[in-house]
């Protein structure tokens, strides 16, 4: 791609958040907190005092609200990256299908069926 179009054209892919430099700046505090959840001691600290733990990472009000609401779509809108958010979702016992169902507004059963149907296409 010519450098001019690579740097100026912002491509929209429907339903698909692109985690670029803009999102990376916006979501830094939230993603940094989620990265800390690789350590069990930090997961335990979050569970013990969620408010205090979020405050120590300087989450924005939108990020804090999204975490309080367990709202993955809002976390992504606030700059969250799905790979880091998965570590937070794991604390709540949510797997990628639960998270997928939540973002698509489907039941987990309907979401799973959609995946199965996707694998059956001829």
């Amino acid at each position: 791609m010519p450098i001019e179009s690579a740097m100026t054209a912002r491509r929209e892919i429907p339903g698909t958040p692109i985690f670029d430099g803009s999102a990376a700046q916006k979501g830094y505090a939230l993603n940094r907190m989620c990265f800390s959840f690789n350590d069990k001691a930090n997961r335990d600290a979050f569970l013990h005092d969620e408010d205090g733990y979020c405050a120590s990472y300087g989450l924005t009000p939108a990020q804090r609200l999204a975490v309080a609401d367990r709202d993955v779509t809002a976390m992504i809108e606030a700059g969250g990256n799905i790979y880091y958010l998965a570590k937070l979702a794991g604390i709540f016992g949510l797997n990628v299908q639960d998270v997928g169902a939540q973002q698509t507004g489907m039941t987990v059963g309907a979401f799973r069926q959609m995946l199965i149907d996707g694998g059956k296409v001829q």
Partner: protein
Amino acid sequence: MSRIVGGVATSHVPAIGGAMAKGLQQDPYWKPFFDAYVPTREWVAKVKPDVVVMFYNDHGLNFFLDKMPTFAVGAASEYVSADEGWGLPILPPFPGDADLSWHVIEGLVAEEFDVTTCQEMKVDHGFVIPMGLLWPGDQRPVRAIPIAINTVQHPLPSPARCYKLGQAVGRALRSYPKDLNVLVMGTGGLSHQLDGERAGFINKKFDLFSMEALIHDPAALTEYSSLDLVELAGNQGVEFLMWLAMRGALGNSVKEIKRNYHAPISSTASALLVLETEEQPDLQLTAA
């Protein structure tokens, strides 16, 4: 001189690691998936690799957004698995080959791939699951060199660039003076998307097309941009970049040993492709 014996591209869905830890390989849901790896392991035993070079992507274990390398080459004497936050067991370390790592790094930088070098590198499910599929349990009969390609934060490297990276890695490996058999791996994919309203997206037609093209006409796939791959294969289906890098290392002519497509595993269209190298191309520096 070292030789490249072939390549294995495979999905690395975390649920596979969970199933291996729980011993579910014969479970009806998992059996069609795991069965494809039985002949693969037989082929691996036949070609006897001493070293595996694996293109994979880190998912927020070793790298954070404070410093995010586009291409990072492991240069450690061993690589450790670690807690990723959601319950996969921590496995015994994987032995490295630092001498060969530095040879590859020298070759890459000489060809203007200015890579990040890592004397410490935690390896996540993108690395340990494919290793466990080929060498189950705690056995560690091969040394490994992980090469991480950024798929976390855009802009991602282009398919053409990843293919050329693979070609350069292939040239470096073939110029290593020790007599080693090297297996090249690429992990991740195929189509899947975990985030956004399009979560759950699977594109079987594109997956089957890209597996076929990867064997016979990989250069055609380098016409796509990374965002094209996102659109066609999903936000995380872009991990196909690892498959392209692997294919680049193998040279022009390959023989198909095994192909499997099984969708879905968890939220991902899983796939396996095993290719044997048919010739050892010369070392001249040709562009893709």
